[in-house]
């Protein structure tokens, strides 16, 4: 039984956190082979070879794999599929773009966002914005699965897997990369941060979102946002937490001016400690908060930032 795991690589760099969490999710399924694909992927492949529990790394470097376009990446994975029973990846936007395409090429169902492995064919996954957990058993010969990283601890480092170079599949030539608009930030990455401070519509403006950022910086935290804050232009789209944004489970989640719609809760309710600051004491966010502070955020947040010595 072997597993092919698509490593998360952006611009040649391995996302160790997401990849190592997927490795730990996949461990019980069989020997894990990592696929490092990209225009440059050798360094990422070397880094992946150090993840505990990885038995082999395949490096595929080709211009067509450069920006992880779905068609050439899926074609490559499908061409390798005969050697594996499981094809898996961390549930990032890249993998959610690519793996369903792989599954359809192989005529099997996709199992999206798995949160637990029951056995080689059986997985748990949240449905209805996490309001129910479904256990599904696949009857397909191959299982194509994305793992929700927030639910798994990262595998450690210390492995010495063999690295092998392979060639890309033919590029179907259906799409081309034009540009990336990446928000540069020195803050920790949202999905792997130990602390997340998120702002919602209550923050009121892009300028005042600086209150959230200052508190985050004081705590060494990542910044998150509700959909309303993103839609209103207070925060960038890649900061959205929720059913259709990122799913986070930090040690501490601070929700400021966020009402607590189920779609938002879907992305943060597995956090260890939740703090909510909201002026409406009836706000649903208080139902999931360990510590709720009913207050005007424009007073409470600067005071909190100030007093956290």
């Amino acid at each position: 039984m072997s597993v092919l795991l698509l490593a998360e690589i952006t611009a040649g760099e391995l996302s160790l956190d997401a990849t190592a969490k997927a490795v730990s999710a996949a461990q019980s399924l069989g020997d894990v082979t990592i696929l490092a694909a990209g225009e440059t992927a050798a360094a990422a492949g070397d880094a992946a070879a150090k993840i505990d529990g990885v038995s082999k790394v395949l490096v595929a470097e080709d211009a067509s794999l450069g920006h992880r376009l779905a068609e050439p990446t899926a074609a490559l994975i499908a061409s390798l599929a005969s050697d594996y029973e499981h094809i898996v990846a961390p549930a990032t936007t890249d993998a959610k773009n690519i793996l369903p395409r792989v599954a359809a090429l192989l005529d099997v169902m996709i199992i999206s966002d798995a949160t637990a492995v029951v056995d080689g064919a059986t997985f748990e996954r949240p449905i209805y914005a996490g309001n129910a957990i479904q256990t599904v058993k696949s009857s397909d010969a191959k299982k194509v699965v994305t793992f929700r990283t927030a639910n798994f601890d990262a595998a450690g480092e210390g492995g010495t897997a063999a690295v092998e170079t392979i060639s890309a599949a033919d590029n179907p030539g259906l799409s081309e990369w034009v540009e990336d608009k990446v928000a540069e930030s020195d803050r920790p990455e949202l999905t792997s941060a130990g602390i997340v401070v998120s702002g919602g519509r209550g923050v009121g403006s892009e300028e005042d979102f600086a209150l959230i950022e200052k508190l985050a910086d004081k705590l060494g935290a990542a910044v998150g946002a509700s959909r309303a804050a993103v839609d209103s232009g207070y925060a960038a789209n890649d900061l959205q937490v929720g059913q259709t944004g990122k799913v986070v489970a930090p040690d501490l989640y601070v929700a400021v001016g966020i009402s607590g719609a189920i779609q938002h809760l879907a992305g943060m309710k597995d956090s260890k400690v939740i703090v909510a600051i909201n002026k409406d004491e009836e706000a649903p966010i208080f139902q999931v908060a360990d510590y709720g502070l009913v207050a005007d955020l424009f007073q409470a947040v600067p005071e909190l930032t100030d007093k956290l010595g």
Partner: protein
Amino acid sequence: MKVLVPVKRVIDYNVKVRVKADGSGVDLANVKMSMNPFDEIAVEEAIRLKEAGKADEVVAVSIGVKQSQETLRTALAMGADRAILINAADDVHTDIEPLAVAKLLAKVVEEEQPGLVITGKQAIDNDMNATGQMLSAILGWSQAAFASEIDIEGDSAKVTREVDGGLQTISVKMPAIVTADLRLNEPRYASLPNIMKAKKKPLDEKTPADYGVDVTPRLEVVKTEEPAERSAGIKVGSVDELIEKLKEAGAV
């Protein structure tokens, strides 16, 4: 150019979901159902393409129980021209898997020959986020998932996609499959006269057998459970008390 928009009937996003006591699934009997919110965005985008003279016909398709007719009527009231209902289930609790949906849609595409298919990014019931990508694989078409902007220029389309790192713009060859993210547009409400007019627009009914597609699920639902409840927390009276509690809990 014809635009095909698959629309799914799902539980309304405001409804509190209840898991059935026997663990067999979520209770959908007598629950408010609506068009999947992402599909409203997809329909809106297709209609805007028609209004901009870039599309000449918008066809909505739904696969599921016969009540999905209502969802199709909503699409027609928003401005779609025609609808196709594929009756694939009798029980409202039956969910047709993305793979089977994609296979049926591929057959519809063969028949209708659209130049563009816009699906929603994900259905808010099964949260699979797969159908568009699967359809694109089956057809061998280009794929632009999680779109927040679509710009059609002749035989290609420039699509901005919402990705983990921010935004990515790609250029895809037409015909293409695009999946709509939340910020692509704000869907319109259907006006009363348009709701009346929609009742007269054509709605064809088909079955999976008409297309020779087997919709037997590949994933057996073993059980459905409530998620673990969080234990109730406390309200703190001041910022000082909040800091004190967080320190006690070792959270800061």
